[in-house]
């Protein structure tokens, strides 16, 4: 059991129907249109690890997060957490027990907390929902404990969310995620709505909690520097696929996929004042009509005919014909 990954995502797919309404299709003669938001991605997360998915908007990273926690049913493939499939009907009872151990933290702490509930009720909700602790006083004690754990005062439970700043609200959201003794937390852009000094507080808190409680994170972000700071392994997404997956250090020292290289060149970074930029070409294509073959081929300087027709498999941690064929240099991590 200890060898099996804690979270296993296999060939996960999600297709959205983005067709025009039926009447328009009949009158204007349009076809049904589908958007492949997530197009067959696989990854594993070991217990106690932080796995990050990074990508630009429209790459499908949030859709993956929602499927992993079960907020969105996949169109294909599956998610297995601690040996329990998230789709298999036969395992419904086991899945119900598993639910408690999975929680999610959302991007916008203004939208993810009920404005009409006091903080103690918000944090206690998972405890009550899973019937974890009996007795009002015991629940109140546990809520106070959780609030202290995330750096708030136990008395803050009597306040409403609007009395808190964005960073404090994100702390409340973290306390709520921990309330059910969660082991696996999916964080979808947890600091994107926060100022940098507050972001630093939240990222440090998340790392401290991981050390103390042995949490496993799936961390979704568009910010490469944040991902580098948080993750032990990173998957880079482009148009619904993982184009490269590798350890945090290697990815930044020796990026293999041309898209990863371009992205690392493009990020403005305070460590790189006065640096000459490599010009970046083009934008993410429309996912409704993705390019054939490798999705990155129209922007890739190394693309050839094979790249335009044949989809590269994820092999040796990178999905790129040019790397597989050794047509381009593969940097070696120092």
């Amino acid at each position, binding site marked *: 059991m200890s060898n099996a990954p804690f979270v296993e995502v296999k060939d996960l797919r999600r297709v959205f129907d983005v067709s025009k309404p039926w009447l328009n299709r009949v009158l204007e003669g349009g076809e049904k249109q589908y958007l492949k938001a997530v197009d067959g991605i696989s990854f594993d997360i070991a217990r106690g690890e932080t796995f990050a998915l990074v990508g*630009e*908007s429209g790459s499908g990273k949030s859709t993956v997060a929602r499927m992993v926690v079960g907020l969105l049913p996949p169109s294909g493939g599956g998610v297995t957490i601690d040996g329990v499939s998230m789709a298999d009907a036969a395992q419904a009872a086991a899945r119900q027990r598993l639910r408690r151990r999975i929680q999610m933290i959302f991007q916008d702490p203004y939208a993810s907390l009920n404005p009409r509930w006091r903080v103690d009720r918000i944090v206690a909700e998972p405890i009550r929902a899973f019937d974890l602790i009996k007795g009002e006083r015991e629940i109140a004690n546990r809520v106070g404990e959780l609030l202290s754990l995330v750096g708030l005062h136990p008395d803050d439970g009597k306040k409403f969310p609007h009395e808190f*700043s964005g*960073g404090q609200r994100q702390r409340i959201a973290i306390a709520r995620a921990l309330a059910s003794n969660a082991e696996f937390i999916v964080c979808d852009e947890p600091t994107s709505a926060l*100022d*940098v*000094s*507050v*972001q*630093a*507080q939240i*990222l*440090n808190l998340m*790392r401290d909690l991981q050390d103390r409680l042995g949490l496993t994170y799936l961390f979704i972000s*568009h*910010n*490469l*520097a*944040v991902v*580098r*700071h948080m993750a032990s392994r990173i998957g880079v997404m482009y148009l619904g696929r993982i184009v490269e997956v590798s350890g*945090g*250090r290697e990815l*930044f020292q020796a990026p293999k996929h041309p898209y990863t290289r*371009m*992205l*690392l*060149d*493009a*990020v*403005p*970074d*305070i*460590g*790189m*004042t*006065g*640096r000459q*930029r490599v*010009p*970046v070409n083009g*934008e*993410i294509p429309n996912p409704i009509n993705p390019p054939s073959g490798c999705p990155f081929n129209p922007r890739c300087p190394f693309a050839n005919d094979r790249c335009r027709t044949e989809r590269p498999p994820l092999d040796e941690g990178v999905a790129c014909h040019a790397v597989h064929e050794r047509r381009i240099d593969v940097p070696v991590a120092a």
Partner: protein
Amino acid sequence: MSEPVLSVRDLRVEFVTRRGILKAIDGVSFDIAKGEVLGVVGESGAGKSVTGSAVIGLIDPPGRIAGGEVRLGGQRIDNLSPEAMRRVRGKRIGMIFQDPLTSLNPLYRVGEQLVETIQTHTNLSNAGARKRAIELLAEVGIPAPERRIDGYPHEFSGGMRQRVVIALALCAEPELIIADEPTTALDVSVQAQIISLLKRLGREHGTAIMLVTHDMGVIAETADRVAVMYSGRIAEIGPVRQVVQTPLHPYAKGLMGAIPTLVQSSDDRLVQIPGSMPRLSAIPPGCPFHPRCPHAWDRCSRDRPDPIQHAEHRVACHLYDANDPTAKAHMIHTHAPLEEGVAS
């Protein structure tokens, strides 16, 4: 360095509310030279956008400019009539806002919007203005401009829209461009394109650019000088390399250390500044940063620090006051823990 394009002196902006007067900008001074990019950074509520709005005279009631001077090319513009100011805006100052979709009228083709702006500021004929519009679109890097000029804003992607907005700002060849979070709504790969475009245009046209953003990375790569704002004041201003690599003000030090970067070791903890920026209604007396500052001593809660020239920086902090014999002691006493976290 002749006369600066933009010169702001002791600018103060207040908002009159039922609960009293809020000082959003409290004594801000800076210059921008021809062809220079001044970055203005700060966290939400620091007053960076209000500074930009005050310069272009777009402070709406209940806000008001309560004092100070704004000079454009030597001429005072903060006391102009709304009609005169409207002519300065657009003609001599171009503006780029965060969300390109709200800066463009969705009902008009981009060409019509460009031609209208060009004809407002020049006396070109219809055909001449259209030709100029196509040139501008080509200059900001829109492929096939002679075809795209007849497109509507919704037919452009986010990055392409922002290019159209930049073309609009350039129509009248302004002396100054104020860019308020121009890349915040864009993806990194597109962001990089817009940054290099702004840099190139500033260099080629000699336009002064005031770049307001919360993204230190964008500033580090784009700006020549940077002003770090805190609670409506400039905490530190200086050449970008110096301010990013060796910040002096304790807030600037904390801010730089709090930013995860692509070069530092990822095992380091980020520097944590305790607490958060005070509300405008409760700005502490003395130095507004003193309740969060590890160096603060009694003088900091009493006297408001004036900007002090220190090497190439100007920093508003008592620690650097050569006339205060006790200042040095406070610095040595608590310097180590802060210094540690700052990315080398």
